[in-house]
């Protein structure tokens, strides 16, 4: 193992070193060099995924509509399960249905928190900053709406994730879209289509792991860091190398203790973040009605936003989808190992995810940005810089807290996504030490690339890859939603008959 780490570090430094040598040759910074060499590959991908049609004079990316339509279809098909089933979800997570005989197995609470650590990340801090910058306060309204609808998508995919998971003799469990797409569609005599969608999903999932789960995280945590220490602004690659070594120690070196420490700190960081947001909202309680007014007016009749209503809507929908990943399929991977007597329980648990991620945490961020009035159209202050400015206007030192939070969120999200990407990778190429190592090294290199680029290309590529995952996944979900309905009906019948009931009641 130690040799691996050594080899990895050498690799990372050779990479950085050669980039450094190039820097001397031309008068470009390392960051600009890296940027120039990868953009020709990234930009076409972005162009294809974000194929847009003009609606009322604004470019509307079809992919955003794709996710919202899917979420709306699932919401209607399952009869607003996110509202009807909300109380039941809380009850399951609390452990009301845990069988004491199953103690020691993965609980719904644990599956939910692990899945959340993959989604609660910089999307909630930086992504919202981008949405409000481009879409104005009105984007918040659409973001919340997308979050509420997305709960039904999560319900659908995580129920399937558990139902079609693979359990191996050694007791390990694999699940996720690749399994429900291939196995589920095979049941409907669409084996070839299922296999194709599963492979397509896996390829996109690797891209999503490298993009949204990696480059975006590295990029925005560096942005916050550089905002505090302007001297290091041109040394994104160096930040990337440090981050890559840390992630490498965990995913290649197998030093789990670092991961465990991070995972323990992240929930308290999230609490600190939401807590600070609440304090700022309370301190500015007088501004709250005006902020809500700005959000509602902005949602339906924005003035300073490119594209008006549609502009605000697109930004809100985009950032919500990017942040809570509903319909993307990633969460089904984390949720599928839970111990449960019925797959539908995990669907109920998973529908809380977009609620916590988007309706609560993202809304906090955008309320703080709106209330503090730091948003200025076309000012160039976007992403995490905007969020940081908003928080700092009440607590001068908050940018430091935010920098620490950003790095920790980024770190835990990267670890989660390296796992999702790895699962997709092994689904494609098979398991094996060398194959797995290859993916991990690629993953680490992308951390360096991500922290070297500007926000624009990173966010475009990240969005593109994350959204591409939804293409295959959502097609599969449409085919399989009848199956989910069957499972839910069966579950509700069992609840009624008392076969499934609260423990100790």
């Amino acid at each position, binding site marked *: 193992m130690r040799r691996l780490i050594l080899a990895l570090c050498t690799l990372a430094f050779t990479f950085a070193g050669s980039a450094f040598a190039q820097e001397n040759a031309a008068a470009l910074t390392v960051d600009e060099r890296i940027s120039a060499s990868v953009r020709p590959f990234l930009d076409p991908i972005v162009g294809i995924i974000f194929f847009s049609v003009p609606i009322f004079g604004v470019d509307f990316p079809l992919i955003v509509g794709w996710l919202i339509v899917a979420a709306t279809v699932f919401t209607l098909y399952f009869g607003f399960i996110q509202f009807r089933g909300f109380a039941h979800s809380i009850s399951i997570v609390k452990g009301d249905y*845990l069988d004491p005989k199953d103690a020691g197995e993965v609980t719904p609470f644990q599956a939910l928190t692990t899945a959340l650590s993959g989604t609660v990340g910089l999307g909630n801090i930086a992504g919202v900053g981008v949405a409000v910058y481009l879409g104005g306060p009105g984007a918040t309204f659409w973001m919340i709406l997308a979050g509420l609808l997305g709960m039904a998508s999560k319900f659908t995919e995580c129920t399937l994730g558990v139902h079609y998971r693979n*359990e191996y003799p050694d007791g390990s469990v694999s699940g996720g879209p690749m399994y429900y797409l291939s196995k589920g569609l095979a049941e409907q005599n669409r084996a070839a289509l299922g296999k194709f969608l599963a492979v397509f999903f896996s390829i996109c999932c690797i891209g999503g792991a490298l993009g949204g789960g990696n480059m975006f995280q590295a990029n925005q945590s560096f942005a916050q860091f550089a905002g505090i220490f302007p001297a290091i602004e041109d040394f994104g690659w160096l930040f990337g190398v440090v981050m890559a070594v840390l992630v490498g120690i965990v995913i290649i070196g197998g030093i789990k203790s670092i991961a465990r420490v991070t995972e323990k700190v992240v929930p308290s960081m999230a609490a600190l973040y939401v807590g600070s947001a609440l304090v700022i909202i309370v301190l500015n309680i007088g501004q709250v009605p005006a902020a809500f007014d700005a959000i509602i007016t902005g949602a339906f009749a924005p003035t300073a936003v490119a594209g008006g209503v549609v502009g605000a809507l697109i930004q809100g929908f985009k950032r919500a989808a990017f942040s809570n990943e509903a319909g993307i399929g990633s969460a089904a991977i984390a949720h599928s190992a839970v111990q449960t007597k019925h797959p539908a329980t995990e669907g109920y648990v998973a529908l809380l995810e977009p609620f916590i991620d988007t309706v609560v945490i993202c809304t906090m961020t955008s309320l703080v940005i709106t209330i503090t009035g730091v948003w200025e159209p076309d000012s160039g202050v976007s992403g995490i810089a905007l969020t940081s400015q908003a928080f700092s206007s009440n607590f001068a030192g908050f940018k430091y807290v935010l920098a620490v939070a950003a790095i920790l969120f980024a770190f835990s999200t990267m670890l*989660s996504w390296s796992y999702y990407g790895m699962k997709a990778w092994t689904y494609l190429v098979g398991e094996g030490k060398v194959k797995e190592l290859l993916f991990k090294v690629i993953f680490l290199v992308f951390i360096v690339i991500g922290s070297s680029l500007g926000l624009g290309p990173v966010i475009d590529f990240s969005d593109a890859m994350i959204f591409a995952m939804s293409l295959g996944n959502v097609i599969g979900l449409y085919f399989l939603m009848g199956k989910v309905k069957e499972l839910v009906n069966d579950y509700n019948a069992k609840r009624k008959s008392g076969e499934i009931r609260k423990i100790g009641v």
Partner: protein
Amino acid sequence: MKELYLVGFDDTAASRRAVDFAVERAKGTEGTVLLLYVLEWSPYSFLTNEEIAERKGRRREELSRAETLVTPAAEKVRTAGVDCETLVRFGNAAELICEIAIERSADQILVGRTGDSPFKGRLLGSLVVNLAQAAPVPLTVVP
């Protein structure tokens, strides 16, 4: 009068002393010794993705490892001429010991004293202290 002695067992020297002590009592009352092995587990702890995926297998391993520790101890009790039962459970040690004491209507709980300093015990939450506060039946701490 048959009595049931519930012993918290974790294969440490202290817990073995508690077993020996229970065996001596049981001989006099034709009682039974119940060895309870608790695998510390919280349903609310945080797991990484890998840990979640491997949990089912790990749980099986942990259970069988606990069995291999508790079975010889039970054999030893039986060779001393005392009835012995074993139980391996996941959860919080103090909570489970109390729970099972009630469930099985045990007459006494016996645990070994680990010999931690009171300071460390306070800081980390000692099993003995927790049991002393919550035990539903008489508790014997074996030094």
